[in-house]
């Protein structure tokens, strides 16, 4: 893994952070595809670390993920560049859209295009869930991985994500490896 220069790093966070619809989940999935699978800037283990830390950081998970990934790639400068590139344009868009919301909501074509993009984001989220757990679905640990993901899925319907993650961390502490 070689550390990318700040300009291409900013370009990736600018592009994916500000052009992916559907919330933080699909955006992190797009980052995983770009940073791990396509550019090989991050190893799957670094992605997992960044993803895990972003889930236990208060506030918006996506911005914590961008900051953490930027820090892993280029230290504090990388963290700042990634955070600014991923957040500033979309925040400006939100402010401008809020100012002209009544006008924009009357453009039917805009709403139709967003409906299509949001439908795609459901598929993107599902693909993301699979690509996150796929490395852990091995012959030795597949059943336990599926069980942990399934129980977390069920618990998160009735509990807070932080509690579920805390319980998972305890389970992980006592998780015994099988070869």
């Amino acid at each position, binding site marked *: 893994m070689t550390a990318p220069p700040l300009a291409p790093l900013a370009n990736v966070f600018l592009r994916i952070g500000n*052009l992916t619809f559907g919330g933080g989940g699909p955006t992190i999935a797009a980052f995983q*595809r770009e940073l791990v699978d396509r550019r090989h800037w991050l190893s799957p283990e670094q992605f*997992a670390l960044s993803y895990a830390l972003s889930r236990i950081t*208060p506030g918006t998970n996506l911005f914590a993920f961008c900051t953490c990934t930027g820090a892993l790639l280029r230290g504090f400068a990388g963290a700042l560049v990634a955070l600014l590139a991923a957040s500033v344009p979309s925040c400006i868009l939100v*402010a401008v859209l*809020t100012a002209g919301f009544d006008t924009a909501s009357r453009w039917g074509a805009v709403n139709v295009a967003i409906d299509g993009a949001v439908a795609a984001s459901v598929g993107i989220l599902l693909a993301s869930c699979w690509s996150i757990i796929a490395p852990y679905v091995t012959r030795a640990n597949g059943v336990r991985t599926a069980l942990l*993901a399934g129980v977390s899925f069920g618990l998160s319907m009735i509990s807070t994500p932080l509690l579920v993650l805390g319980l998972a961390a305890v389970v992980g502490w006592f998780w015994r490896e099988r070869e």
Partner: protein
Amino acid sequence: MSLWTLYFLLLKATLSSFSGLASLPILREDFVVRRPVLTDRQLNTALVIGRTTPGPKGLYVVSLGYYVAGYPGAAIAWAAVVTPALLVVAMLGVAARFTGDPRVKRMLRAVVIASAGISLSATLPLGIDALTTPLAWVLAGASLVILLRTEVDTLWVMAGAALVSLAASALHLKAG
């Protein structure tokens, strides 16, 4: 309301939440109930805008900031949203010291697997909201297959879905 007060109220709400819309009850309490500087209608509009723009849904906070104090309020809200993210740099420094420990590795792995389960549960409301027509189901299914089977950029998948939706609308089919 001063911009400092706005910043600290928004920061308090974002610091006390761990996902996109979890700060909503606190913000409603602070801005609609205790200090009536916003209406429920503005809150709902902010949620719609956060939902329909790219990036995290938590950006509805920026829309709230705009409603409270115009563009300066939106800038302050941006600052409140990104401030907690900087905490992760310190957390990374601590975590990096322990990532060699097999137990910490297993904990992180379990947290990642659990996160996938949590993301799956977050997909449900999104799916219920978005998959209301056969075309929307087709777009979601096609996106899933394309992403699992090919190397196509996610952005092209979304752009393609938006174009198909527009084309279908022209033919009087709807995606949502």
